[in-house]
């Protein structure tokens, strides 16, 4: 059986003043019904990789790929209309900040219902039941009340849970989560990630978790790709984080301060001249 998602040799470039600049340089991976983490710093191309899968990049970005197959279908060959049917219904995406990705003038309930109705034809009463059910699943205690709230009336953590509810209600096969918790407080982060983990397990979905935080990704994923400057430099099994070989991965691990920190200085990575910060 072929994997759920096959990505081979993804390249993304933007035009620059001195010719095109390639920001994703030949990324390939297969994804089954598993949890894959993509880790990298800003500019590593990790988010662009996530967006390319859904074909969300617009010109002047130029995307080329040897093949991009989802469930046996070639995503690159699809029309915009077919692509819209895939987006949301079969592959969903949770973005960083719920405040920007929720529509501010629609109630939470209406937005979740909308997400469902776009992809399925079901009677109104059933929609309401499904929405309530979904809100309960993402552990919102008083779904009847929360349904009627507007996005600015909910906290960051609840907003992100609403986002997840919205993304998962059409029962997609793959969830792409791009820094889903970096806008949240630490105490809420774990709750949101636990929730994602649980929903993935329950529905047998594939997950792509994109983050800058190696430890976090290692904790919630089976497999981790480490990206640097547009390339995958290392692939690791989550448990084997500390046997990482690549100097970049090692550098990332070492440069994070620890809770019981006693080093006087943190190790820093050597940078190519001109790249220095």
């Amino acid at each position: 059986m072929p994997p759920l998602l096959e990505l081979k040799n993804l390249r993304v470039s933007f035009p620059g003043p001195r010719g095109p600049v390639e920001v994703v340089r030949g990324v390939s991976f297969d994804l089954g019904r598993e949890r894959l983490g993509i880790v990298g710093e800003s500019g590593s191309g990790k988010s662009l990789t996530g967006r390319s899968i859904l074909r969300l990049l617009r010109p002047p970005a130029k995307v080329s790929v040897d093949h991009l197959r989802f469930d046996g279908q070639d995503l690159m060959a699809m029309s915009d209309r077919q692509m819209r049917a895939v987006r949301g219904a079969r592959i969903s995406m949770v973005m960083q900040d719920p405040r920007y990705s929720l529509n501010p003038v629609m109630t939470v309930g209406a937005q979740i219902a909308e997400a469902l109705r776009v992809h399925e034809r079901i009677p109104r009463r059933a929609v309401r039941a499904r929405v309530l059910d979904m809100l309960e699943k993402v552990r919102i205690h008083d779904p009847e009340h929360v349904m009627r709230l507007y996005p600015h009336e909910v906290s960051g953590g609840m907003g992100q849970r609403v986002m997840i509810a919205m993304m998962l209600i059409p029962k997609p096969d793959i969830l792409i989560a791009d820094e889903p918790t970096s806008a949240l407080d630490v105490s809420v982060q774990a709750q949101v990630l636990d929730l994602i983990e649980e929903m993935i397990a329950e529905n047998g979905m594939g997950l792509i978790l994109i983050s800058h935080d190696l430890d976090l990704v290692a904790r919630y994923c089976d497999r981790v790709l480490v990206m640097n400057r547009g390339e995958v430099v290392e692939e690791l099994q989550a448990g084997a984080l500390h046997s990482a070989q690549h100097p970049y991965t090692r550098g990332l691990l070492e440069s994070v301060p620890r809770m019981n920190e006693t080093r006087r200085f943190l190790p820093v990575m050597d940078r190519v001249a001109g790249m220095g910060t």
Partner: protein
Amino acid sequence: MSALNIENLFVRYGTKDVVQDVSIRVGQGESYALVGESGSGKSTILRAVVGMASDWRGTIQVDGQPRSAMGQGAFARHCQMVFQDPFASLHPRRTVDATLSEPLRIHGIGDHADRVVEMMRSVGLDPRYRFRFPHQLSGGQRQRVAIARALMLDPKLLLLDEPTSALDVSVQAEILNLLVRLREDRGLTYVLVTHALPVVSFLCDRLGVLHKGGLVEEADVSVLRSGAFQQPYARDLYAASLGAGDRTRRAG
């Protein structure tokens, strides 16, 4: 004489006190951290100190002088602030040179060129970057410029508002190292506001845990390293932070 002395501080935004009855005392040369989650009032305290939040009651003293008695100019020479977002804290149309010489101009200090170049060297910025605009710099370079700007008037008290939370981890390491070195070289006092406990462990001597506008617990950094907090909220925060960063490393 303490570098920063805050007693019974209340800060009001609108009709609500977002900081309630907070007292902290930071000694000369000390590095003190205010930690808490969003809405805990930690940034608001800094804002009250520098005058960006004006509706406050209580006592704020900087180097023994009451804050309310210090003019903007005098205060500037005692205390400066480094902001969280290096993209928002630099004027987009001014070169590094213009940004760094502005405080000298305001205070009528001459010899701009030499002082700017010297300061750039001491924060680890190549003087080649002197005439670049912010959009020609990386996030880490911008934060170095912001730190350099704060040090131009040679203040002893530096308020750091989440100075590394907008940066990549490898860049964060460089900026944290820089802060450690500057503190040693110049005998600075730091008041750091952050939600990241590991950063506190690296950079600070003492910390205060804030929750919903109140000071829950004050502790030495050794308490943080061992996690032996007294108050339940501080322990919860510690546990959650472990989950977000250190759990696997400890388990493995």
